[in-house]
């Protein structure tokens, strides 16, 4: 009689639709091979965290998803990134169209030197919305969505620079929400923030995933563990391991992942 029984404890959840599907992506900066054969499915209404040591390609990868990386003149790519089943590298794919759907939040809060209101209304105005009532609605909805409405509703005409770093970052998130994106890319969005502001932004990310798909690059492994559903571990331009965050932080299958998340590597 076999006495050693392995208990099955994994909870199976329904699989969500893929919003971004990266297939055999390679990227070079000149001769430097920065991303190597990346295959990564990003699912909708989930938070996907990209972790890895400095120089592993995680920021390059996230900047490829909205084709921002093309601003570097020597960049060359092969492979595909399908966004909603269409290859973003296709010749007829308009980068503006892509960036309307894919918002981005950066490491350092970068509000425009304008009023809080104008920061949020900036994108919608570019898209031709001039009606004050509609703009008011968008501004309120976006600021509420970024969990900062109550803090700024009485001073919408103040310059956004007068806010704290954590508030500025949520203004940037609100600005991103104003164009009603499908995906939000976040490149170390809390690394310049104090711990309380960091927690607020993390809470916000949890709320935002109800309506958006979020991809976040973070140096903070505990942050990835706290807020993400899936985690991809990048090393030397490759995806070493990609799995449910619960698995990555408890029983990763690759020793390099275990060493990195345990702080023994990097």
């Amino acid at each position, binding site marked *: 009689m076999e*006495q050693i029984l392995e208990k099955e404890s994994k909870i199976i959840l329904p699989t969500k639709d893929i919003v971004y599907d990266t297939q055999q992506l390679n990227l070079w900066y000149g001769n430097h091979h920065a991303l190597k054969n990346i295959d990564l499915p990003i699912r909708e209404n989930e938070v996907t965290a990209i972790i890895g040591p400095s120089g592993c390609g995680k920021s390059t990868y996230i900047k490829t998803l909205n084709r921002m990386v093309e601003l570097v003149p020597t960049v060359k790519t092969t492979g595909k990134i399908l966004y909603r089943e269409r290859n973003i590298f296709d010749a007829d794919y308009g980068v503006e169209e892509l960036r309307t759907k894919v918002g981005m939040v950066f490491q350092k809060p970068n509000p425009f030197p304008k009023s809080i209101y104008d920061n949020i209304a900036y994108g919608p105005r570019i898209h031709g919305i001039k009606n004050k009532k509609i703009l008011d609605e968008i501004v309120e909805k976006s600021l509420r969505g970024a969990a900062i409405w109550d803090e700024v509703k009485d001073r919408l005409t103040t310059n956004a620079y007068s806010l704290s770093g954590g508030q500025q970052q949520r203004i940037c998130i609100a600005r991103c929400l104003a164009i009603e994106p499908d995906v939000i890319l976040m490149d170390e969005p809390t690394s310049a923030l104090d711990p309380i502001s960091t927690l607020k932004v993390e809470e916000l990310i949890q709320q935002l995933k109800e309506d958006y798909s979020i991809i976040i690059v973070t140096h903070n492994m505990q942050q990835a563990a706290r807020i993400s559903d899936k985690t991809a571990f990048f090393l030397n331009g490759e995806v070493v391991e990609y799995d449910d965050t619960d698995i990555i932080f408890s029983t990763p299958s690759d020793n390099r992942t275990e060493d990195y998340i*345990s702080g023994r590597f*990097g």
Partner: protein
Amino acid sequence: MRMVGREKFDADLKYVQDLLLELSNTAIDTLNNAIDHLLDHNIEGALTVINNDIHINRLDEEINDRVILLIAKQQPVATDLRRLMVLVKTAGDMERIGDYAVNIAKETIRIGKDEHIPSIHLLDEMRVKTIHMLKQILDAFVNEDMEEAKLIAKLDDDVDEMYGKTIKVFLSTGIENPEQMGQITQLSFVCRYLERSADHATNIAEQLLFLLKGKHYELNN
């Protein structure tokens, strides 16, 4: 890319592991002594067992406290975190073995100088097996030897069988000699404490497998 140490974490972890080793060795020795004192009608020895339990309890508490601090201050994950959880649970198993030793010591005091029933030697045999199991599982645990742990867990069947047999013999002695029913009840409890102690060895084997594999195992049904 380079390997970096977590020297503070590793040193603190080693300290807790040493505490567990001390707790385990003390608990196993105490259980062994408790049976010796029972067989020898040694009331004074039994009292020492009872008094020493405070030391075992303190070690268990210190392990708990130190692990909580390590988790709070170092935020371990994956195997590191499992290792801490397993240390706490194993300390709990060993602490419980110390409690069984105390229970046995109390039975020793209750029985006092009354002449033992002849079949008491069965308890000695059961003790040998149980102590062997506990010592072996501690070695396997320290060496993180999964295969050895699985083999040791299987020995629990032998202890269970000895338990069944011993209780049967005790009861038939009691039926023939009703005036000894009091002592037989006490000795049956001792028999139960030994059997439970062996179960804890199986628990520890399961914990070791959880540590190494990250999955839960049932080694003995």
